[in-house]
């Protein structure tokens, strides 16, 4: 069976209308993610991670190279690929419940069926009691959880996540990471997860892709061989199967940061 996501020699340039100089964001990136695999992407700021995600989501057309999902070339956005955006994409004019049920509403699922599903995800991300609140009444972490549930509830085959936990406090972050791991076990979704945080990448990923500075190239791939069920923070911190690849990722990332200072 071919991989779920296949990116082949993908490059991307943003034209610049003002200076006339193109921004070269991605350079000959090739990678693939297997069905049900959790892949993490780390790399310095501005290396093209969001660009890659937007191309996979079909929001940004690609001109050089190929991008396939389920063996089909990506041509536009679709409900098979759910996205958790770097900025919270929850609609301010919808309550928490209606935001989370939005995907099902678009799919035309009848209301009664929808409500049951929505409640399930509200409970999952711990937003019970806030169903009828509007997003501006939530804290940053709650908004993030709402955004996560909003994407999950639409039940996509592939989840593309762009630094979803960047804006939450350390405790919430740990909870959300373990929650996401549970969700990954339960749903066996194929996930591409962008992050700046090396611990997070090693904790969540089956594999971690490390990108170089702009123009973003795939610099290395690190495998993390820890069964999903064992990924609980308090057990993992001293586990060699976790710490070794984490240190390896950290080394590779540091190389990128300090490269030109030598």
């Amino acid at each position, binding site marked *: 069976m071919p991989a779920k996501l296949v990116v082949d020699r993908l490059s991307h340039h943003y034209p610049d209308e003002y200076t006339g100089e193109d921004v070269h964001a991605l350079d000959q990136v090739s990678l693939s993610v297997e069905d049900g695999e959790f892949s993490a992407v780390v790399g310095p700021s501005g290396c093209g991670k969001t660009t890659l995600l937007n191309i996979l989501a*079909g929001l940004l057309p690609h001109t050089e190279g190929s991008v396939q999902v389920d063996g089909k070339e990506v041509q536009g*956005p679709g409900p098979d*690929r759910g996205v958790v955006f770097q*900025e919270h994409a929850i609609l301010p*004019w919808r309550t928490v419940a209606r935001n989370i049920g939005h995907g099902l509403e678009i799919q035309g699922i009848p209301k009664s069926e929808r409500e049951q599903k929505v409640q399930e995800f509200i409970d999952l991300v711990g937003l019970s009691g806030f169903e009828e609140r509007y*997003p501006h009444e939530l804290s940053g972490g709650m908004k993030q959880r709402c955004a996560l549930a909003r994407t999950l509830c639409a039940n996509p085959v592939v989840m593309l996540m762009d630094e979803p936990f960047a804006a939450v406090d350390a405790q919430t972050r740990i909870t959300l990471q373990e929650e996401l791991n549970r969700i990954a076990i339960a749903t066996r979704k194929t996930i591409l997860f962008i992050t700046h945080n090396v611990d997070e990448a090693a904790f969540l990923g089956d594999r971690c892709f490390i990108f170089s500075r702009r123009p973003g190239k795939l610099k290395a791939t690190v495998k993390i061989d820890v069964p999903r069920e064992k990924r609980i923070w308090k057990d993992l911190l001293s586990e060699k199967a976790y710490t070794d690849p984490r240190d390896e990722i950290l080394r590779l990332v540091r190389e990128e940061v300090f490269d030109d200072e030598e």
Partner: protein
Amino acid sequence: MSVLQTASIGLQKRFGRQRLRKILLGTIPFVVLLAMWQMNTAMEWLPPVYIPPMASIWEAIYTLSEGCAGAGAVLSMQYECLFTNHILSSLGRVGLSLVIGIPSGITLGVLAGMSRRFAHALEPIGVFANAISGIAWVPLAIVWFGTGWLTTLFILLNTVFWLIFFNTLLGVRGVPRVYENSVMTMGGGRWAIISQVYIPGALPSIVTGVRMSMGFGWRALIAAEMIGGDSGLGFMIFVSAAEYKIEEVFLGVLVIAIMWMITDRLLLIPLERWTIQRWGMVWRPD
């Protein structure tokens, strides 16, 4: 405890101390104005031909309601009554212009906001029309439509439509891309994006557009009625002034202001409160 104290406590309980204070502060300038007006009549600083006594304004309602059986008929807005007739025609024009102007302004504004091609086609004519909207059209409109309903409605629509169009356009453009992207990645089509992203996202701006268009439109209407109308409050003021019936002019001006305040307070502000304030999309004054 005196009756006054009881009443005061009752009011405070009913409205809340903060709000009561706000309302009271807001009425002070009006009370001052009314007092000065009354003083002027008592001291005869300016003669009644300039500033009529307050009581005569009350009487003007009756004079203007000739043929109507007393205050009851006036208040029940019977159409034969001259005064209510004027109010009704002004209100009718405003209502009609909103019924036509809001849906068409929003529709074209959304189209121009989401499509480059529509924007390129409509924006220049919009800027052109906006520059001459309002009373600059009156002479031409009289030539085209004569005096009466069509002319006044044309002036009013010209103001209302373009303001709502431009505000909707700007509102749609200001909606963060990520909302649209999020609906698209969930499989939402164009209609879902319009109805679930563009229109609610542009609503703060649309509401501003409606408020502005009511404000400007109301003024344009009064001016249009003066020159090109055959009824309405503007027309009434104009005729009364020509006949030196200063109390009728005062009455007309007061009614214009009061009706505007009523629409703003009873219609537009609650609309704002129930939508964009609820969604946390505007600054809440308190």
